[in-house]
């Protein structure tokens, strides 16, 4: 049973935690965010936010996890139930189940693309097929209607999900830890080789338009005006938030397998900084420099406006063709490192769900891993078949973006004001193998919750114009122009013309799929809450 489980080694735990944090966003999202938000100046709010929000949140989550683990709880509902006497606390923990279930559904699908791209890089598919045409066919883009018709994508998704279930069924030490010990070093080696190859491209090389250093300059040249722009700070906070995989319940779960006096301060700091190393040193040195070298700066600046996804999946496979015999190896390395980044994260999503079933319903590990696989499959299939109608993006926005901010906001307040800073600080520093500066007591109590609250409010009312301009407009009576991508903007369908569930021919529209997805997510959350109610109300436990 899960109570008897534990990490095989400290190194394994730190690598698994770092693997949880390191994801596809480290290589695809970070460089695009940095380039769009002031280049080198972005890194200043980025690092400040890491210290004031990211690191404290890691310590909070590790502390909540290890504390809950002492009561035999390895998933958030039970952990939060033990943070105070109020009955509602366990329902905050529902986020820790809901987020992992929903994110795993679409994330495993994305992860499976990387595995497919490894294969197709090796067999040379991208030598004569444009990646954009390949991806459309791979995902079964519908010529009309809302239903995608993927063929090959289903195979790779099935394989990826099976791999996840297999690793999870082997347990912490023999499964998750093994994957992290293999995946993380390979990821770093692959990233270092690609960065070296990309940065040493010469303008004399065939088809190279500009030095890759122009791309590096694009990422790092500081525009200090950005420091006074709230958009830059919100973008930096958002990047730190999502890169560390906080607000999900997975870090809590991993930490819950520690013993009462095991260190969490140093382990959390090490995992967090390792994520930064991978993101900034490797993630910032591959995608943009190589793309700029072959496409030129203007084309890449335009491409990064939509994030780094298009560059990573649609552009790089073609650019690697310029590298001769090394092209298939480079493609396999690029998508291989994305796969390792993905699977070490998706495993961290499976463990909390399994731990909930094992702890609260006494389901054996072999069955709980299958149950996780079955629920992930059931949630992923709609994402796969309605991918082009926006279901995937809806999952990503509500569960993988907004849901995380809500959970992190709640947990930071609960930790500081319900659990209490005295107990919280004791929890963080007990058994610590590093001295945690006392300033963090103040930061965790006041600054971190305020930072997350700002991110939360920012996502709610994000304006369509720059923040400064929007406030000026508000005070001069012009009102507030909501961005269609803000939470309220999405709920109110801002910017949507002809909002309707059915078109003139009587067929369902994308708006129908979006609204049904939101309903599905709400029902799933309620379902998780009911399970938590059943599990924790029938269980008699020793008093805290």
């Amino acid at each position, binding site marked *: 049973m899960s109570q008897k489980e534990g990490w095989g080694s*400290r*190194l394994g735990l*730190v690598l698994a935690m770092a693997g949880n944090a390191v994801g596809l966003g480290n290589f695809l999202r970070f460089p695009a965010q940095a380039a769009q938000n002031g*280049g*080198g*100046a972005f*890194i200043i709010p980025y*690092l400040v936010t890491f210290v004031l929000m990211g690191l404290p949140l890691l310590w909070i989550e590790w502390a909540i996890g290890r504390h809950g683990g002492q009561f035999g709880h390895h998933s958030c509902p039970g952990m939060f139930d033990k943070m105070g006497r109020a009955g509602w606390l366990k329902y905050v923990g529902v986020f820790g189940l809901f987020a992992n279930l929903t994110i795993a559904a679409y994330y495993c699908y994305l992860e499976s693309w990387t595995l497919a791209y490894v294969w197709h890089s090796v067999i040379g598919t991208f030598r004569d097929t444009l990646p954009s045409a390949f991806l459309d066919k791979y995902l079964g883009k519908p010529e009309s209607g809302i239903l995608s018709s993927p063929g090959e994508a289903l195979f790779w998704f099935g394989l990826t999900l099976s791999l996840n279930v297999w690793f999870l069924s082997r347990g912490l030490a023999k499964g998750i830890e093994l994957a992290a010990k293999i995946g993380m070093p390979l990821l770093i080696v692959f990233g270092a080789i690609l960065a070296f190859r990309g940065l040493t491209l010469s303008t004399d090389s065939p088809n190279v338009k500009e030095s890759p*250093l*122009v791309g*590096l*300059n694009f*990422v*790092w*040249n*500081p525009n200090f005006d950005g420091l006074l722009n709230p958009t830059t700070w919100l973008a930096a906070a958002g990047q730190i938030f999502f890169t560390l995989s906080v607000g999900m319940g997975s870090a809590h779960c991993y930490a819950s397998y520690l*013993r*009462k*006096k*095991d*260190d969490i301060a*140093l*382990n959390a*700091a*090490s995992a967090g*900084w*390792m994520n*930064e*190393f991978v993101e*900034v*040193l490797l993630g910032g040195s591959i995608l943009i420099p190589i793309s700029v070298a072959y496409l030129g700066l203007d084309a890449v600046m335009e491409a990064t406006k939509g994030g780094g996804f298009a560059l990573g999946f649609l552009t790089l496979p073609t650019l690697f063709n310029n590298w001769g015999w090394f092209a298939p190896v480079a493609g396999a390395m690029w998508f291989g490192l994305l796969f390792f980044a993905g699977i070490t994260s998706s495993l961290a999503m499976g463990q909390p769900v399994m731990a909930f079933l094992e702890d609260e319903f006494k389901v054996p590990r072999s069955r709980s891993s299958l149950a996780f696989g079955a629920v992930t499959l059931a949630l992923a299939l709609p994402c796969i078949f309605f991918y082009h109608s926006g279901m995937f993006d809806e999952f990503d926005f509500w569960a993988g973006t907004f849901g995380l901010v809500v959970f992190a906001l709640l947990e930071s307040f609960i930790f500081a004001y319900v659990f209490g800073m005295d107990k919280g600080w004791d929890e963080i520093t007990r*058994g610590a*193998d*590093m001295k945690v500066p006392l300033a963090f007591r103040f930061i965790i109590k006041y600054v971190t919750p305020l930072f997350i609250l700002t991110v939360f409010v920012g996502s709610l009312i994000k304006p369509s114009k720059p923040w400064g301009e929007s406030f000026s407009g508000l005070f001069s009576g012009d009102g507030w122009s909501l961005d269609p991508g803000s939470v309220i903007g999405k709920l109110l369908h801002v910017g949507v013309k002809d909002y309707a569930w059915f078109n003139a021919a009587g067929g369902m529209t994308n708006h129908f799929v979006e609204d049904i997805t939101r309903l599905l997510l709400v029902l799933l959350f309620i379902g998780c809450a009911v399970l938590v109610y059943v599990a924790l109300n029938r269980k008699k436990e020793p008093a805290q």
Partner: protein
Amino acid sequence: MTTTAWAMMLATWTVIACFTGRFFWLVLTTPPHNDGD
């Protein structure tokens, strides 16, 4: 690359590499606690 871009990049890389290396080294070399429970 401009001088300021080099300076920003190298300063950031140094800070991150130092903290990552320092903490990871401590993880590898600090003996486990025997009074864990």
